[in-house]
């Protein structure tokens, strides 16, 4: 299996590009600076709006509500960018560097807790995932908690200090993991702490730092493809990743280069 780069979306952010997400229609949402930008399936800018703080992550709910993760809070916008609600909760202590949805619940990665908090849609805290499992929680020397959610609601969290992607039930039970350290074999994760980011679609997609690369694994942990490696700035890390392979059926993979401040778009090469 191989991928090709089909597009680059650049010039949209001035200082930071922290998060990418897709909605059910295949539209791309990008978080950076203190803004959310929306692009159509061809990568054309459609709209953008300001948040109250620098945005660290973004996710789009099934009903089109756009969740923006910030320091100690989550802002919720409607599809047009109108602020509907701001969540502040005593559980949200650090930066909210990842957001997602599992069933009716909202998931938020908290860098202070080094874990994922689960809330109901009204913002009521339900439980924490990955904190005490088994000892020190998610090991995130990079300062970012990131995860993806499978179609059945299973949570796939990057645990870079352990060179793994860990699989959790919404209730917090650790179900298993894929990944291992290897500084030479591309099937492994190299460096001190990889993968930094993860997304779930028809496969497990991961990004790494030093050197930056994007890979796809099957759910048993077998490497399917090194999607890209050489096009990213060598100094970039915490490259967020989103996929739309359930949305538009083309299996698009979006990766945010945090130094070039560009989103690279990949598609699988049809054989």
């Amino acid at each position, binding site marked *: 299996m191989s991928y090709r780069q089909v597009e680059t979306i650049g010039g949209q952010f001035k200082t930071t590009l922290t998060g990418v997400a897709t909605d059910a229609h295949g539209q791309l949402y990008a978080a950076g600076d203190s803004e959310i930008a929306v692009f159509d399936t061809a990568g054309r800018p459609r709209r953008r709006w300001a948040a109250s703080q620098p945005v660290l992550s973004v996710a789009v709910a099934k009903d089109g509500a756009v969740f923006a993760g910030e320091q100690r809070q989550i802002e919720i916008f409607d599809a047009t960018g109108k602020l509907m609600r701001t969540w502040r909760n005593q559980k949200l202590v650090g930066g909210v560097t990842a957001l997602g949805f599992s069933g009716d619940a909202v998931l938020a990665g908290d860098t202070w807790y080094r874990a994922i908090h689960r809330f109901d849609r009204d913002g009521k805290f339900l439980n924490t995932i990955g904190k005490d499992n088994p000892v*020190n929680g998610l090991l995130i020397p990079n300062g970012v908690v990131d995860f993806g959610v499978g179609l059945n609601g299973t949570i796939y969290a990057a645990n870079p200090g352990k060179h793994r992607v860990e699989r959790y039930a919404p209730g917090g039970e650790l179900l298993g993991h894929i990944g291992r350290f290897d500084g030479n074999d591309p099937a492994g994760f190299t*460096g001190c702490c990889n993968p930094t980011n993860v997304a779930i679609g028809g496969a497990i997609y991961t990004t790494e730092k030093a050197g930056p690369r994007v890979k796809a694994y099957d759910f048993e942990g077998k490497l399917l493809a090194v999607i890209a490696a050489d096009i990213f700035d060598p100094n970039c890390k915490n490259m967020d990743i989103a996929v739309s392979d359930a949305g538009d059926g083309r299996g698009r993979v979006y990766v945010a280069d945090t130094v070039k401040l560009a989103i690279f778009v990949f598609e699988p090469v049809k054989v």
Partner: protein
Amino acid sequence: MSDLTRRDIVRGTVLAVLGGGAGFLVKKANGQIVWQVDASRCINSRLGETGVAACNLCTTECVVALSAVRAVNEHSKCGRCNICPAYFNITSAVNERGYPSEKLCPRDAIARRPIGKVDPEDPANNFYEYVIDETRCDGCGKCAMQCKEPLGLGSITLRVRYDKCVNCNRCSISKACPHNAVVQLPRAQAL
């Protein structure tokens, strides 16, 4: 002011320069002016340099045996990683325990031990402290190069140790450093 001649101005300037120089030498003799490595210039620690070999001029050029430069780990910045690229040679073969089979430091000057709440079952669950043995370290810079961003967090940098430095008037490392990373500073401003 009308009596001020050109000769007076030159004399004043010369005296000021001589006075400043003398003051500098007194401060230097008293240990108030020291040589230090500027981490933002040192190629082993400055950001933006990736894929280059570590520079070891601090080891080879210093007139002091084993060099006056040491690698220093600023623990508050350290990620306490399970697999630290400054400790392990991360491109060496993976052993049966899943770890790199070789250490990086040629003088085995870094010690690794678990800290905090320790999981006895799975060493990958733990945080680790990396302590540099300064009796062994010769400032070769390999660990600093591997620790810097984005591979590491940049907690390890090279520093001149004042108890070892003989404070030469013209530091031989400074002369050799292609990046002018060894500089003289008032001690209060130095690390």
